[in-house]
């Protein structure tokens, strides 16, 4: 009897969300984008698995230890990590509707993301210049597919960031822009999480004996 009363009380105080009106659009949108990001991570998992399977299949071509430069990778990692941090600070500025802070955070995030992408493209160009093209071996195909896919995501994120800043400038902090900015910061943090797996599996494990 007492238990039943206790359960009734819980029901009264903790009014279940499913019995209420639908959740606010902000929560629905962010949750949907979260599901998309998880499916994106699953896609990266398949590329990681492919890379792990093919990493020894160099077909007599160059191996990772011969190709990768750890200094470049460390700078790339630093760029992406700090840009993830400034993206978080930008989210705080957006939350308190400070447009100067938002633009400043976006500028640094963009600059660091662009620096990351430039370093990665230079690395790819150097590899292709010495004949380490995706056609050379299964290992290089898997490498370019995995790292290139992440690079494409970063490039898309940079374009998205520019579009968002244009929307902030023209529309101001309306709810729709707020939601998109929340999705952007989710996307940018997720890219950094994928890069953690990437520099560990591809670069650090590739160069350690």
């Amino acid at each position, binding site marked *: 009897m007492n238990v039943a009363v206790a359960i009734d009380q819980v029901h*009264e*105080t*903790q*009014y*279940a*969300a499913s*019995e*209420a*009106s639908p*959740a*606010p659009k*902000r*929560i629905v*949108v*962010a*949750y949907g*984008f*979260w*599901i998309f990001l*998880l*499916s994106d*991570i*699953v896609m990266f*998992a*398949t590329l*990681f*698995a*492919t890379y*792990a*399977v093919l990493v020894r299949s160099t077909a007599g071509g160059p191996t990772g230890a011969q190709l990768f430069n*750890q200094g470049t990778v*460390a700078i790339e*990692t*630093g760029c992406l*990590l*700090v840009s*993830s*941090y400034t993206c*978080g*600070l930008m*989210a*705080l500025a957006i*939350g308190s509707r400070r447009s100067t802070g938002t633009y400043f955070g976006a500028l640094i995030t963009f600059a660091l993301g662009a620096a990351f992408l430039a370093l990665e493209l230079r690395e790819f160009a150097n590899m292709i210049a010495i004949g380490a093209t995706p056609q050379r071996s299964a290992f290089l195909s898997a490498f370019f597919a995995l790292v290139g896919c992440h690079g494409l995501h970063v490039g898309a994120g940079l374009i998205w960031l520019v579009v968002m800043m244009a929307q902030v400038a023209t529309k101001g902090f309306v709810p729709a822009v707020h939601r998109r900015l*929340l999705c952007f*910061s*989710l996307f940018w*943090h*997720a890219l*950094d*999480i994928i890069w*953690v*797996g990437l*520099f*560990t*599996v591809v670069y*650090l*494990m590739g*160069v*350690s*004996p």
Partner: protein
Amino acid sequence: MTEPQFDRAPGDIPAHVETQAWEPSDALVYTTGLVLAVLLTATSFWVANTSVLWAPGIALGLVVLAIAQMGVHLVFFLHITTGPDNTNNVLALAFGLLIVLIVVAGTTWIITDLNANMMPSSDLMNLRMQR
């Protein structure tokens, strides 16, 4: 009747509750995450290059450090918590991780097994000569 309790959107910073307990400011949360992530990254790069550690254990150590850093990113940058307003986000994440684990572990296991059971090419050559 109280207000309905909706789940928190992923990536949203938890609202500050008016309590006596000290709470870190939002910027401090991000800064803590950055410091922890930098420490873990630096450790990863050190582990990969040092000769102090037992070489066969380095790969495992790197995986552990990477998973720890992903956790730091999830908690400090994406604000995923175990709170009741985060159940949906955590469940979706758990399902994603299950699929990732099945794909990665399953693929490497099966292909490693196939590779191990593959006849070495020298044996193939011998077979051809015996025929």
